């Protein structure tokens, strides 16, 4: 197949659930090209990819695939034709081996007995397609790092015909090195003539990996042009539909005495002898690769996990506190806004008011009996203070967008007046507009004299909002940088420092399952 020829085209494609979520999209996917697909959350990226990969059927419009009309009735039909999608959540069985996962739907067998030798051969060949034939096909998938698991998933999609391959936020869980591995493979596939769709928020990645960019906004295609024509700022503006300042004014703050002092915090080899302090009115960033121990560190401070050793001092003046449970942490005035808001933060099927009130029920009840009126008022107060976009306080949190869900979690903590607030990836999976709302809120909290700890994988974000940035690497705090004295290169170098003595490729993605 010659490169840059249209493999799959959609015309006037639209999808309506209760409301239209995608309207009149016309787009070509070309062989040998990586098309970046981006847009705010809820802009219709997922819907479009689901229509193409057969998970949903369009309400309007047609699709053409390799010159034929194309309307897949199911995902398996689309896959048979060679249209495949690597989902954000990996669809692998961790207890089965690499080989078994690869050929789960078609295990080579004789009269029901699996032919192990043939399976191994096939698996090695399939893994060679992603350049990883060095991995023993008999390794259970659960023992691989997330990056390698994703390669297994990709390899599985390359078995048989594959002309269109869609990646949905493939780097969300990957370390920088695993991202490199992924990009190498994508480039290889592109050269083979596969039409690749790469969905992501991360503009740097899109600019590196793709040739053409399609931006969706509110279900409409805003542009589909060569990516080189746009600067990052222009792309953000296209996505949001309004100007977003690159700099934010954190306002006047008084940075005072230390409010939180952590000393020698250690747990196994995940967190090793970490000490730091955070002052009142300060935003303290923690950077590092995924698996460097950032989330683990916050959980230790919060008492969600037990530390092997280490101490915490809190308050003005600093006093030692013993935190052995989240309950004790909250009583001492520490809050943790977790990274995994769906798994660890929210009661998704329940209302906004129930979620905001969780942890604040004392304030909206008398003698253990809830006051529905007070509960609703509490929710309404946070909905307006946090500008949560919702139908009513009774709306289920699961129906809100990621940004609004995050605001619900934060709103819960604002009611408690904690002095130290720790945010783990506060803007993960949140669209650009809502990100700036969150930054504004962090600034407001800092102005009130609270001590903030922010963990983020987005270094630009930390450099935008933090007063100091500490870098964790392989569980150790390598260095703390001041705003005046940091550079992106220095911080990145520090992030890798702890791994240099290790067999990095297999260990840096120490699985950090959200369980």
């Amino acid at each position: 197949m010659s490169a840059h020829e249209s493999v799959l085209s959609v015309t006037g494609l639209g999808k309506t659930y209760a409301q239209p979520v995608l309207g009149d999209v016309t787009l070509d996917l070309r062989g040998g090209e990586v098309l970046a697909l981006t847009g705010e959350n809820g802009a219709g990226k997922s819907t479009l990819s689901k229509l193409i990969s057969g998970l949903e059927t369009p309400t309007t419009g047609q699709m053409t695939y390799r010159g034929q009309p194309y309307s897949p009735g199911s995902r398996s039909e689309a896959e048979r034709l060679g249209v495949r999608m690597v989902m954000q959540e990996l669809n692998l069985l961790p207890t089965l081996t690499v080989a078994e996962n690869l050929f789960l739907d078609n295990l080579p067998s004789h009269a029901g007995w699996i032919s192990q030798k043939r399976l191994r051969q096939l698996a090695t060949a399939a893994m060679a397609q992603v350049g990883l034939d060095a991995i023993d096909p008999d390794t259970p998938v659960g023992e691989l790092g997330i990056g390698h698991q994703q390669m297994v998933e990709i390899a599985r999609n390359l078995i048989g015909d594959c002309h269109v391959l869609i990646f949905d936020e493939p780097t969300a869980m990957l370390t920088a090195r695993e991202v490199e591995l992924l990009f190498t493979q994508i480039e290889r596939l592109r050269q083979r003539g596969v039409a690749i769709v790469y969905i992501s928020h991360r503009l740097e990645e899109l600019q590196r990996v793709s040739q053409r960019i399609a931006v969706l906004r509110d279900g409409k295609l805003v542009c589909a042009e060569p990516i080189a024509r746009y600067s990052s700022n222009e792309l953000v503006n296209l996505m949001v539909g309004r100007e977003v300042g690159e700099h934010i004014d954190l306002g006047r703050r008084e940075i005072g005495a230390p409010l939180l002092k952590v000393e020698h915090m250690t747990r196994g080899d995940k967190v090793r002898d970490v000490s730091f302090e955070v002052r009142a009115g300060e935003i303290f960033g923690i950077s590092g690769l995924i698996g460097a121990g950032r989330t683990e560190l916050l959980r230790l401070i919060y008492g969600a996990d037990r530390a092997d050793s280490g101490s915490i001092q809190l308050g003005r003046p600093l006093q030692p506190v013993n935190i052995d449970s989240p309950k004790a942490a909250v009583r001492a005035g520490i809050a943790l806004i977790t990274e995994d808001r769906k798994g660890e933060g929210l009661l998704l099927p329940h209302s906004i008011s129930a979620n905001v009130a969780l942890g604040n029920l004392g304030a909206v009840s008398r003698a253990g009996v809830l006051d529905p009126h007070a509960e609703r008022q509490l929710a309404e107060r946070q909905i307006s203070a946090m500008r949560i976009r919702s139908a009513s306080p009774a709306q289920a949190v699961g129906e809100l967008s990621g940004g609004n869900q995050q605001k619900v979690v934060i709103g819960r903590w604002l009611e408690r007046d904690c002095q130290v607030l720790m945010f783990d990836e506060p803007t993960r999976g949140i669209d650009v507009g809502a990100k700036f709302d969150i930054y504004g809120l962090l600034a407001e909290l800092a102005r009130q004299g609270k001590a903030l700890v922010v963990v983020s994988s987005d270094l630009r974000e930390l450099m935008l909002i933090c007063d100091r940035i500490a870098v964790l690497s392989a569980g150790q705090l390598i260095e703390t940088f001041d705003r005046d004295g940091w550079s992106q290169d220095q911080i990145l170098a520090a992030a890798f420092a702890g791994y240099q003595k290790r067999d990095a490729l297999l260990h840096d993605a120490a699985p950090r399952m959200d369980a």
Partner: protein
Amino acid sequence: MKTPTLDSAGTPVRRSGTYFGLGTYLGLAGALLAMIVLFSFLSSHFLSYATFSTLANQIPDLMVLAVGMTFVLIIGGIDLSVGSVLALAASTVSVAILGWGWSVLPAALLGMAIAALAGSITGAVTVAWRIPSFIVSLGVLEMARGLAYQFTDSRTAYIGDAFSWFSNPIAFGISPAFIIALLVIILAQLVLTRTVFGRYLIGIGTNEEAVRLAGIDPRPYKIGVFALMGLLAGLAALFQISRLEAADPNAGSGLELQVIAAVVIGGTSLMGGRGSIISTFFGVLIISVLAAGLAQIGASEPTKRIITGAVIVIAVVLDTYRSRRATRRN
């Protein structure tokens, strides 16, 4: 979907099918009514004062047990030991009265306390070692049954009419036991929907880690729910003693399945986080009316079991369909 649904007829539509609204209750009431009409056609004696009175005096045990089980299922647990714990409580009462010559009230309190203790043990072991309550309560089931045999020497202990006021109708064929069970239901529904305790239980069943990280220790609440289950099994034991005038160490064998069936017919989720005491009450009525109706039309024991089993499966299928439709509406 433009087709008007039942819910659009003025009843409040609750979002995501998680909460129990009037629609759910109307559905259950409709099913109950349909069964009553059906049995009235099949048997001329069915729709009578006698049937009503018998029913009202036989179901208090099931009612209070089902209340406890609803709480247990809401936190995502299960308690298989309720029948045995009931027998243990009854045996304890018989030993206290017959062996030690205790009077009725302290004996009754002791029985309930022992039952609550058995429940607390299930809860504490479940929580402390993070073992599924299914397994723990299976062990407690055996232990409680064994103890009941031990206490009574494996014989039915005749206690007499000391407790009979519980089951003797006072007005309209209704006994104090039924009234107590009804009060338990009302109180439990209020606890579930209007109190901090109830809210935490729903939270724990929906996402225990989120509750824990919100600064709430879920463990005492979980143990409390199992203790409450035990306490209610003790209360059911008193109801049963009063009706049989005896403590039977074999009592309540297999009862746990009937209780779970009633709760699940009401629409409480086995996965936790979703449940309603009112719905459970309908579940109890449905399963009891079915049993009484089948007995009246002279169905054989095998037929009764086949039909009851089928009704359980159909009810759960219908409920799944209902909640999926409610979810899809959004």
